[in-house]
């Protein structure tokens, strides 16, 4: 009950924020929402289903390029282009999920790593220049005001992202709480037991890959619209690894956690940029250093990320008192990470 109240409050706050915030800040928070959607997709796959992907930037890129091409070359409106691009990503993820079935943890990491490294080159492939614009990329027109109401471009981008994010979060939440969610978590924790209980592991794993790619693709499509262009360099290994950083910091197998992760990967590079004053050009190294240290530190002290820390806080005595006093459960029970 209390959790739902918190969520609603956060949503209302986010919904009215564009009325008070400056254009640039709005753009940054739209990016946070976009990253949150992509991280949610990755977390469904890696956190909940236990399939490690180091290459989700590729699906993000496919969604971005797909939406950009549909908008620019076919003249589709963005509200049609983004779902179509997302659907294409579902198919791509589903197909990639098939060979991935045979890979097992480490090999899947290798294959997706290869996918992430090869993506920028494939996007710049010369024979596809007429579609992708080669290394120049594609310019995407910014969306007009939603429903013809008076608003700035930044406001309409933000509200668009917020609306899509809310829908996708609700869907993911329902998916995880229901039968499907129990099945994919069971496959992560004990594949053999899950299969002997009648869970079709191959089907669930491939579909999970597809849904995960769908989320990443929709995020990519939103990103293309929000940024105003797509180009091969923005979809390299760095992006894929940033997604991994995001779910590790936010919390593996946590849905609200991805919001913390998204804030982290959006703002840490920004803050590092401001340190250029003290450290000169080489301050570019700082986000990487923070990412690396945080990843190792998180694995050592908080393998379930910020969401996990909050949950252990919930188990602290003060919090329990608060719960008893208010008569409400403030935070959900902790899920478990595969330990074998």
């Amino acid at each position: 009950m209390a959790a739902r109240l918190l969520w609603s409050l956060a949503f209302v706050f986010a919904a009215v924020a564009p009325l008070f915030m400056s254009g640039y800040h709005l753009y940054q928070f739209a990016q946070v929402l976009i990253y949150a959607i992509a991280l949610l997709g990755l977390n469904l796959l890696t956190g909940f289903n236990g399939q490690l992907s180091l290459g989700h930037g590729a699906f993000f890129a496919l969604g971005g390029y797909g939406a950009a091409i549909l908008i620019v070359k076919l003249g589709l409106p963005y509200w049609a282009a983004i779902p179509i691009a997302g659907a294409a990503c579902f198919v791509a993820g589903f197909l990639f999920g098939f060979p991935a079935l045979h890979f097992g943890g480490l090999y899947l990491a290798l294959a997706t790593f290869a996918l992430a490294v090869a993506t920028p080159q494939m996007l710049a492939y010369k024979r596809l220049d007429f579609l992708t614009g080669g290394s120049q990329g594609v310019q995407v027109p910014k969306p007009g005001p939603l429903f013809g109401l008076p608003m700035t471009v930044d406001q309409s981008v933000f509200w668009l992202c917020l609306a899509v994010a809310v829908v996708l979060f609700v869907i993911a939440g329902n998916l995880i709480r229901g039968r499907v969610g129990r099945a994919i978590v069971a496959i992560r924790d004990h594949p053999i037991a899950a299969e002997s209980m009648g869970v079709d592991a191959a089907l669930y794993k491939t579909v999970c890959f597809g849904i995960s790619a769908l989320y990443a693709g929709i995020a990519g499509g939103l990103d293309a619209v929000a940024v105003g262009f797509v180009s091969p360099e923005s979809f390299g290994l760095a992006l894929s690894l940033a997604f991994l950083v995001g779910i590790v910091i936010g919390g593996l197998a946590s849905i609200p956690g991805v919001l913390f992760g998204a804030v982290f990967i959006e703002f840490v590079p920004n803050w590092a940029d401001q340190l250029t004053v003290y450290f000169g050009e080489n301050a570019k190294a700082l986000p990487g250093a923070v990412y690396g240290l945080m990843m190792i530190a998180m694995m050592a002290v908080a393998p379930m990320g910020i969401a996990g820390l909050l949950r252990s806080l919930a188990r602290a005595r003060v919090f329990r008192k608060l719960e008893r006093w208010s008569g409400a459960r403030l935070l959900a029970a902790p899920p478990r990470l595969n330990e074998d």
Partner: protein
Amino acid sequence: MTELLHQLASGLALGGVYAITALALVMIFQATQLVNFAQGEMAMFSTYLAWAMLQNGWSYWTAFATAVVLSFVGGVAVERLVVRPFAHAPILASVIVFIGLSFIFNALAGFFFGYSVQSFDTPFDGRPWFGNKFMSAHESGSVLVSLIVLALVYLFFRFTPLGLAMRAAAQNPTSARLVGVRVGWMLALGWGLAAAIGAVAGMMAAPIVYLDPNMMGGILLYAFAGAVLGGIDNPWGAVVGGFTVGVAENLLGAYVVGEEVKLSVALVIIIGVLVAKPSGLFGRRIVARV
């Protein structure tokens, strides 16, 4: 024909680099069943150390040897301080730690040495060896160095008591411990050796691909492809795979897919091998007991 031989030769030169990088990966895999995703960035950092010494006017081979020794020490330290605490963690956690390590080495190199691309000296300059037309002096030297590294690794593991102890620790830690092998230290030594081999690979690659903090990304990917192709638990397979990938990448890049999408060759090799023959050409098939 000359052009083809030329492509073949430069494929062999980089293939040597892939082969020894793949060998370093396999060494760690055999002992821990894990692939070190930070191998490339560690090698890149070692290469920067050598570069800094060369900038200070050290002679090439002094800088080379010092960089290899420092990398060995660094590799041991990384194993003891960072990798050891996660020895019993799930695969996911280990991979995340390795990625974290690669972020850190990348950032260290960028912070101390900058992000601009540097040229890197080669000890093998001058005219091509034996007056051949296909291979530059550096390419020949690079193949030679790779072969020397392979021979040394082979001799070490085959003929020294320490090498035997390390193999024992990797194959059967429990029994090795019972006969008095200090398994933990053998692992740390393995990491040191892998880091030292990586340093050699980096220094041989840098004159070809130029030195910058992201130089090893592609090389590591080809080394992965080589290791997977040869069978990730087989050192000889990794070496054969590394050379094969080097040649295949160069020939396909020049004649089939085009230079600018060469990295996809590695992707196709990795996925193709994993689908068709997951144990690779020479690897052992793993049978899991249910």
